[in-house]
């Protein structure tokens, strides 16, 4: 088995394993998502039309307003939620939202994580160790 390990400076939450959905683009629950149907809906988003449900989202940075702080909790309550969030950089809102919504999160890598992780790869997010592992 071939594994690659990436270390994050910021980490929160449970260990999870699942498929990635990767794009060099931002993340805002209010601006980018159709939260009822579980897809990216902002026309200009690189993942427009794609489902985020059960995916480990690997994106560039947190965007937009403060609503995400509540929305991850609401999305979690219906099970229409990403499995984990992995970003080059986050803002406080996303961290606050992940804390309330129990969504595991890693942020801050030595390289552009959206370029390093293949789309659709199986990965493990381990916040306690602060690492993301690609499992081929």
């Amino acid at each position, binding site marked *: 088995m071939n594994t690659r390990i990436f270390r994050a400076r*910021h*980490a*929160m939450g449970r260990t999870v394993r699942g498929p990635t959905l990767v794009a060099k683009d*931002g993340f805002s629950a*209010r*601006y*980018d*998502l159709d939260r009822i149907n579980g897809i990216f*809906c*902002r*026309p*200009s*988003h690189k993942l427009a039309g794609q489902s985020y449900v059960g995916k480990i989202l690997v994106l560039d*940075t*947190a*965007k*937009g*307003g*403060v*609503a*995400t*702080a*509540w*929305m991850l*909790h*609401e999305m*979690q*309550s*219906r099970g229409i939620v990403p499995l984990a969030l992995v970003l080059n*950089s*986050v*803002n*406080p*809102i996303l*961290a*606050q*939202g992940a*804390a*309330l919504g129990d969504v595991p*999160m890693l942020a801050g890598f030595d390289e552009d994580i959206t370029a390093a992780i293949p789309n659709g790869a199986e990965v493990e997010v381990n916040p306690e160790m602060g690492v993301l592992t690609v499992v081929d």
Partner: protein
Amino acid sequence: MKLNDEEKDILAGKAGPVPRQALQHQIKVGEFFGAEDMVAVTQAHLMADTESLGEAGVRWLEGLAATVDGQRRVRIPTITDPRGTDFANADLLGQTSAMLDLERRAISAFEALGVAMTNTCINYQTIQAPTRNEHVAFGDTGVVIYSNSICGARSNFEGGPSALAAGLTGRTPRYGFHLPEMRRATLRIHVEFTPTSLNGWGALGGVIGRIAGNYWAVPVIEGIEGAPRSDQLKHFGASMASFGSIALFHLAGLTPEAGKLTDVAAPGLPSLRVTRADVDELQRSYHTDDQVDVVVFSAPQLSLFELSDLAGLCDGRRFAVPLLAVTSPQVKPDADRMGYTARIEAAGGKVLSGMCFYQSYAREISEAMGWKRLATNSAKLVNILGGYGYRPMLASMESCVDAAVSGKLART
């Protein structure tokens, strides 16, 4: 994180389960960002419209509100961002009774927690502006960027759960823009064009927000001519925060921390130019149609001066498409007394209060009312509404009012 004795007592549950839960949340966030300790805050501003909260969020609040042990009420003045509706005018927006019931439940829970329902995103114009170096825990990004940049106060973006936690504990984790070193500029922007219109200021903020690009970036902006007004900087900051997640900017020679460029900028920072063409291009990129279904002035809520200007443009006009102007519950009674509301509504417009368009089930409004092509002078609003199924278009207040009369938005 290093906790003082009072914080240790809260964490041990001596103040009851509500403050303990709040502090636990704050520690989780603080440790994520490497905060060393907590900092006392004087005010909290709480964003919690029910579209964001959902049933799950309202139940969570009701759980806190039903707690009988220990301290349940906030310790510091804690005020609210706009609600998800204007109850008096919900029919005009096609909002359902389920939406309104959820709002009522959220309001009851907040009141039980001692939160003051100010329902405004312009509290720095209408309630109490923070002062330089005052540590606060503010919600709405437009409020934070204005308070940090124009007032010189210190706040991170505090989402609803964290702002409520700050209200309940009277403190917040000391990271980000509470730290002096994080407030220094990370890039220089030389502006070759000083807008006059609010949409122009919003578009300029959007261009700079896109360039700066993430929460930790702090642009220092040079080249602004004259002294911008509060409403201009309101649109500028709200748009920059919306397009770029920016929480702090400096205007060299104008804002409190940047008396001189060198006060905030070290030598060798990356430096970029922004031209009039950049600002015009952002506005043009949204002009995707000539027909308009609805005109909306909102995001941020309008000041008394903006409503006065709008009333002047409405005199003697008759609107063919709906025109909505959204303000705060503090401004609305004055707009009524001054006759602005009556003049806007005589032309067929409507002045709404205590909500903000994009925080009020915008997608459902679009579906219920058949509104897709929306004209506004708010760059923040056009940035947000694309994701809600609208075709938002950015134009001056004058052009938007003309569009409400003719149903067509003129090309500029």
